[in-house]
């Protein structure tokens, strides 16, 4: 059984350090020099909850000004990592527009999204309080919110993994809805693996899960 492939799109305005986030996540510790021009530069095999998947990450860092391309990028994604910098209010505000666009394009209000406040190592320059960012994430249908530091590699893996879990869950739900579902996953202690630092609400995952199931059952 070939590992399931998932596409993640990393979005956010320029200068929020999303490329650092991606580079940190994708880069193997054994790599001495990173060449982003090859096909595998943004592919990463990953194990999430005992499931082997391959992540393909589309990070359009550097092309933020090609706003027309954004939709093209969004189309390819099954999950979205929306990144802002905790030092810039506008970077969070811009995400709202991006999130609306995603939902419109995917035609799905429960599309897997993780909100990421990057640069949490720059606490002294913080312009957005955790509470505020968390409120935004709640208003988006309880999407998980992480505060990361790409520089210190804090919560980088966690935020990507959270997104993977959401995508996997949706995948399974969709299969179940179509009657093709085979329960691959053994009973899992819910929330046991989700107590990562940046995560604000342990309960948000279950809420999120219910929400995300809602529209799919209609199919």
């Amino acid at each position, binding site marked *: 059984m070939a590992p399931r492939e998932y596409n993640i799109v990393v979005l956010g305005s320029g200068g929020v350090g999303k490329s650092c986030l991606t580079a940190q996540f994708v880069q193997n510790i054994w790599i001495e020099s*990173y060449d982003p021009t090859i096909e595998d530069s943004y592919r990463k095999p990953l194990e999430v909850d005992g499931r082997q998947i391959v992540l393909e990450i589309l990070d359009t860092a550097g092309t933020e000004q090609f706003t027309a391309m954004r939709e093209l990028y969004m189309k390819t994604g099954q999950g979205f990592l929306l990144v802002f910098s905790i030092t810039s209010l506008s970077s969070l505000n811009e995400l709202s527009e991006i999130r609306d666009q995603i939902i419109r394009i995917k035609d799905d209000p429960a599309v897997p999204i993780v909100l990421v406040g990057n640069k949490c190592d720059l606490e002294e320059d913080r312009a957005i309080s955790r509470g505020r960012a968390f409120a935004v994430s709640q208003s988006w249908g309880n999407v998980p919110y992480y505060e990361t530091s790409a520089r210190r590699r804090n919560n980088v893996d966690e935020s990507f993994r959270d997104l993977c879990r959401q995508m996997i869950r949706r995948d399974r739900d969709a299969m179940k809805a179509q009657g093709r579902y085979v329960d691959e996953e053994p009973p899992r202690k819910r929330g046991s693996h989700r107590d990562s630092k940046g995560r604000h609400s342990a309960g948000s995952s279950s809420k999120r899960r219910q929400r995300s199931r809602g529209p799919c059952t209609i199919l």
Partner: protein
Amino acid sequence: MAAYLAYPINDVVEEDEDSIEEADSVAGSLPLENGDGRPLSYAAVRMAKRISKTGIRRQSHTRAASSHTHRAVELSLAHSQISPPLTPKGSHEVLHRRSFEPEITFHNYLRAFYHFHPTSTVSSSTDESSITVPINQGDVILVHSIHPNGWADGTLLASGARGWLPTNYCEAYDHPSVRDLLNALTHLWDLVRSGENDNLMVFTRQDYVRGMIAGVRFFLEKTNCLSRESTLIVNHVGLRRLRKGLLGDLSALVKIAKELQAILQAQGPTAAVYELLDELVLKAFKVVIRAVRFLDIWSQDVAQEQPRDVDSADYSDPNNRPLTPPADLMERNDVEDSQPPVQTENQRDGATSPQRDVVSPPNPVPHELPTEMKCRATAGNAFAAQSPTLSAISIVSAQGPPQAANLVPRPLSLQAKRISVSHRLSYVGKGGGAARQNLASERLSTAHDSFLGLLATFIGSHLQSRSGQELAATTQQSVTACRQLLAVVEEVWARDGRRSDPLAFARDVMYAKLAELVQATKDIFNQTNGGEDVVNVEQKAHLVTTTTNCIRAAGECVNKARSVIERIGDFEFEHVGLGLADDIFDSLAPQPQPAPPEDNLSVVEEARTEESSRPSLEEKPLPMPPTAPPQPTTRPPPPPPLMILPASKPLPEPPQASPSSNILSPLDQGMRTMIVESPTALESVRSSRSSVRPLSQLPVPQLPQTDVSPTSSIQSPIIPSSHQFYGRTNRTDSVNTAAETNSTWRNSMPTENASTVSLASTRATTPDRSPIHAQGEHIPNPMMGSFGSLSELQSIISEESAVEEQVLEKTFALELVYNKEGQITGGSLPALVEKLTTHDTTPDAVFTTTFYLTFRLFTTASEFARCLIDRFEYIGSGIHIGVPVRLRVYNVFKGWLETHWQSESDSPALPIILEFAEGVLSTALPGAAKRMIELCHKVADQSSGLLVPRLVSSLGKTSTSVTVFSDAMIPQPNVTKSQLSALRASRNGGPSCSILDFDPMELARQFTIIESRIFCSIGPEELLALEWTKKVGSRAVNVRAMSTLSTDLANLVADTILQLEEPKKRAVIIKQWVKISMKCLELNNYDSLMAIICSLNSSMVLRLRKTWELVSQKTKVRLEDLKAITDVGKNYAVLRLRLQNHVAPCIPFVGIYLTDLTFVDVGNQTTRALPGSEAANGDGKAISVINFDKHMKTAKIIGQLQRFQVPYRLAAVPEMQDWMEAQISRVRHSEQANVQTFYRRSLLLEPREQVRHEQRNSPPNGESHLTKESVGGMSAKEKFDLWGSLHLGGSTKGEKLPPQPL
């Protein structure tokens, strides 16, 4: 899981029920439930047990133990046959217990302490290839390997002869002053050795010679003799002459290297090349010999007068020097091997000579086997008592011989704990012959590679829920790999006399991690046996974690082992029967493998269990060093040994009397004897195609005796020989490249010699200035060598001055980092600047352009300018190096000012450059200075607003010529007069035109021209340091313009479609845009193509179901094709491939480059560690230098973009361009041209209810199928959509944010 369930049940592993049972009996505690009748889990469990720490096979221990004792007896018997070398007299009195750590250090160089002249150089009448070389006191020997019995395979630097020599006649030679030089020689030797395997590319560069030069320079510096004017040199005749000879030899070496380079570049490997390689090696030997002799005299005569002056004072003072302990007093618990020194194959002798093939293999095979066991059983066993006294070299220190000064304070323990042949670890010449496979370093690498690979497979197959069979197989392979890696590590550890603690620790950690992994695997298998289909997720996670830990621990372990190997010398696993790779290969067989031979395993385990030193590891699964001899079936047989000494050959007894009384005339007897008596030595040692000429014309180094004055001891051999030598070289090649370069220059700059003297040095401490000045005066004419009519003496001076310059050349070459391809990947700024201005080679174009392009990222313009000026000054004005380098410095400045100047960032450097040009440069090179001052003023004008057209960077522009078309090739614009007038009319307020009015090709062409104009004006500086992403004050105006234009075009497409009420009209517009985008593709305009396709695929257009129903199938298919090209998946794989094959003109999608540049920037560090600098730095921290690799990558990407920056050869239709720009401008400035507005318009045109599902399923051609499904009432989704559009209507961003909780 389906795969798991469907796994074949029939594959019962019947082959080894026994071993299963055995495993059961061993690990009886493990449940073996398999009621579901899946036999494969047997195998799996067995595997788990085997790697588990409880899985020691007790019942086989008895067997192993008996065979072990048997072998031990055999060994002790063998021992009695050895007549060991005797300890020279006096060693007992000078015993210093302190320094008696049983330590093996592999010394690359030995120095003969006694004469050794065997009666016959061929030690066995039956075997001519076992050569012993006669050595004379004072000879320096490059050691290739040392056999446990004390014989070493070495090459005499004096003659180039290679053969066996007794190490107890020698002492380690590693004086700190010459260490660099010796290392450089070792490197050169290795290079030549690998060069003989047709790896000659390295000789087209001169780096290896620079190493030698740097070594000599360092040596002279340490001895305070760098400058010819140093008091030492002036006052000491002997040293002066030796120094001269040394520099002369070095000069000859440089010359040979250049010759070699020239030949290689001109015609590739020829016979002449191999001769030159030999010459090269011999000349390098000579240089070292001279240095050694110089050091002898220096330490004797000079260092005692001023012992504290230099770093090496501690060593030069004989009283201060720690005594080398006699080896017979060392802890002799290791075992001597009665075997002949089987030199199976040296790693540097990849080219097998014909003789070697006929040599009979080493005789006594039985003795080979136990060796492995011996080393396992060494610790505290009974052998110590029986082991014969082994003498090592001792020093007659009481006499204070002159050469004592050359000794290092480390205990000389050439024989201690040496269990098998030790080799010098070579860093070059990988793959130089099959024998390398047997070397510890190779084994380690192979084992580690297999380990990593197999563990990855292991973890992969576990996670992917492979069938039980596969699981078992990979598990088994992983176990084997772990074992083999540990076996190698254990072996390395055992060899190390010091019992490296870090290695032991790393190894123990690895054991621990392995144990965890085993446990995790076992858990999983147990669970599987329990009948559950699915492996527990957490267990899997645990498995991954443990595997990762294990891999990490292994990495650490391998690193430590490698450093140990480096210290103790590489050694052969000559008795290891199963090649690691072979074994792994074996276990790749489809069926689960039978257990590896239990005997071997248990034997080893037994041996290890006896080891009292590490009781904690007793229970651990043991690596298996196989004990069978190599299987010819699995691997080609090892090449026959190079040289064989008969088994009975003992080390000779060192002379008992005072060494000096015993001296034979080395030149007359020693050398002649060697040459005459052992012709085969040369033949067999050298590769077959290049045999060394006996070097009768070379001076034989003679150790000065205590009673001989330095002057007398050196004069006779050196002077004549150098005459001879120079005479010869002058005939062949009388002028070197440096002189040639110089001569042309001198014609234009005639005042150079006079002016140099007045140069003010900013580096007063640099000791190399005065001799150069003096030098300049000595040389009447730098061209003199080329006429050959000058006296020999003059030519000597000329040669010497060239090399003197080279030696005195200050260099930062050691601060450069290269990758495997020889490209520079890092370096300090002075080192990079030096590389930019080398005297002997034209700087690499890529390197230079990269430097110009990116230097502002790692330094400032002022810093760069200062560094160049420093380079100009410290290099001096020497004829051979100084002047060419200075010209290059000038050229770098010139290139910078002419083509790479960026006023904003570079202007602070201008005063510095101007000051240099008006000062130092105008004195040294007036003409150049004048030109540079002009250039300075020019760029100053430029920055103050006076526009001077700047030359475009040449990077990537080389392909321009390809695209030059004749005018005839410019296509005629496809536009009619009526169209033109319509365009004009529309501009003047007439009826507006539509894109439908024009030919798609012409529209594409005109838009391409507009876009190309912007694209071609993108400057490289716009692409550096994420300039284009800067929110304010970005200089990347053209990059910005590109993205704006691209966005505008996309909006224009959406606008033209969505402004029409009727679906039919919209369909026609879509068709036209598809046509235009196809033409864009024809024109290689990917940027426009992307924009158009993006827009046609945007949700607002794509959702217009009614419209798409009216679009023809043909158009839809075309659109699909275009979408495939612009697919962003797999990192733009499709687009990248296409771009690779294009020639300019082309407009690539700039976004790709922008993303690449962003990730190169964030994904690569700005600095990198200088390899090997940890030790040099003292504090264990590596020096960090500029990560030039990052900038090379950046420049490469920019180069790729620039490659396409060629204007299109298309005829402009101004009217159409005006119209297009007006349209774009209209869209750009329209309030309506944003995604939200377009989407709302789209909703208005074709309301939501009927099109709901189209948006989620992309292709317009799949539509009809989809519409059938689109039934259903108002869903949550639709409610959301309504909310969304409501929200969009009121669009303010902050609104959505709930009040901030306080």
